[in-house]
């Protein structure tokens, strides 16, 4: 537990290696509004769906940032040369690996909450107070699910490509295929199937239902499905990391493959 919490804390502190507090605040305030406004106004101009569809979808998809930053943080361990020390340590891998997701998940939730606040202030979409606990549950689910994919991307980046590239690919894939902007039934069948296998897809659907007045029992299957999706990605990443670690130990290539 101590290792888990320490990893979570220092992952958050590590955020300010590349980002100043003022930049962080600027992005926290401006980015959710701008991103939601951009895609929602395109959707409104297109007229395919009501504005609320795009507002809720794009507010929820911001939870995907948790995955993006988790993927980046793993790759940074290798870039900064601290990965060998982590692997040489007797620390519990589970705590070490998953501990770094905590601060990113909380941060993603904060971003989504700010996005929803802007959606209410700027676009007049007011979600009744009574629905908020359920919406927050959907947001938490989305962030957890995205974190699982982020872990997998971090390990994949260690093997092959740059984490930033994969993270951006992930963000754009979620924008396109999670149902945030395009209903899945409008996508080609293959892409719709891929969308079903992505995190956030079912949480977004649940959030829309909750905002429309559905209760938690009605959306519970969707939330559980999204959690399961994230868990699958997370477990795959943990197993893959173990393989990579074993391979690197035998080949003496911990700093790269």
């Amino acid at each position: 537990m101590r290792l888990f919490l320490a990893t979570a804390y220092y992952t958050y502190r590590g955020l300010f290696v590349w980002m100043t507090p003022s930049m962080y605040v600027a992005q926290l305030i401006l980015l959710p509004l701008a991103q939601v406004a951009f895609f929602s106004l395109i959707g409104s101009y297109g007229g395919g769906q009501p504005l609320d569809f795009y507002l809720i979808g794009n507010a929820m998809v911001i939870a995907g940032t948790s995955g993006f930053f988790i993927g980046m943080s793993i790759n940074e361990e290798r870039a900064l040369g601290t990965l060998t020390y982590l692997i040489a340590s007797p620390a519990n891998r589970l705590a070490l690996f998953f501990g770094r997701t905590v601060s990113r998940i909380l941060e993603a939730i904060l971003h989504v909450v700010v996005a929803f606040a802007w959606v209410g202030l700027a676009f007049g979409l007011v979600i009744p107070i009574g629905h908020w606990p359920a919406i927050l549950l959907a947001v938490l689910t989305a962030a957890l699910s995205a974190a699982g994919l982020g872990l997998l991307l971090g390990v994949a980046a260690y093997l092959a490509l740059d984490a930033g590239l994969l993270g951006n690919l992930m963000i754009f894939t979620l924008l396109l295929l999670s149902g945030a902007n395009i209903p899945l039934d409008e996508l080609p069948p293959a892409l719709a199937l891929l969308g079903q296998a992505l995190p956030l897809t079912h949480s977004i659907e649940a959030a829309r239902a909750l905002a429309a007045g559905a209760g938690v029992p009605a959306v519970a299957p969707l939330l559980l499905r999204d959690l399961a999706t994230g868990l699958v990605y997370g477990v795959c990443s943990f197993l893959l990391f173990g393989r990579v670690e074993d391979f690197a130990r035998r080949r003496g290539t911990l700093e790269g493959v």
Partner: protein
Amino acid sequence: MSRCLRPFLFSARVQVLRALGDEFLFVIALVQPFAIGLAAIFMLRHRADFEAVYAVVGAGLTALFSLILFGGTGTITNLRFSGNLEHLVAAPVPLIVVVGGQIMGSVALVLVPMLVSYGLGAWLFGYPIAIRDPAGFTVSVLLALLSLWAMGLLFAPLAILWPAVNSVLGALEYPVYVLCGFLFPVLLLPGWLQPLGQLLAPYWAAYALHGTSSGSLTAPELALAWLLLLALTAATLVLAAWLFDLFLARAQRDGSLAAL
């Protein structure tokens, strides 16, 4: 002028070669216009008056501005990190010429996202991509590139002079997309926000490009857009030159040229 042209072009060439191996620029130049263009086509095709060229142009503009924003703000910082800034300042060529060449190199890459966006609409979806006013569109593209190049030149010293400003610059990507009407008319924005976009060169670039591609602008309207693009470019360049002088004077006074 001639003694600056060769270093300018050489700097642009080096930037293009460097950028070819830059994965981040690959995302902006290829992935972003593809993803945003694809989303825009799906979202806008319900309109009775939908033309794929609108999504293509808008997606290309988003990539162009992102290239300029991130390329411009990081230019001087990257020169510092690479240890080249002091040598460039000591060189007889003005620093603004070298940085201007670097940014122009990034701008040259914009042809890639434009072509990607075009291919997306024309090949993937089978939409006809017709430019109704090819001559006007070509001039508009050139003026748009020039104006955005000037913006990049402004971002470079701005980002390094005041860190607080740099924080906000980094978050400007989507706000500019929204204010300048890249993929929807600014009439959708609140009335008090609409004039804000008109102060920015990307707004008139989008106005001219969308107008010439759809053939919806009259000659006077197009001339006005070009005039405003030129005027904003000139004003931006004057401001950028002043900021470069300010940066150099401050750095040489403080001895912070090599400071990180």
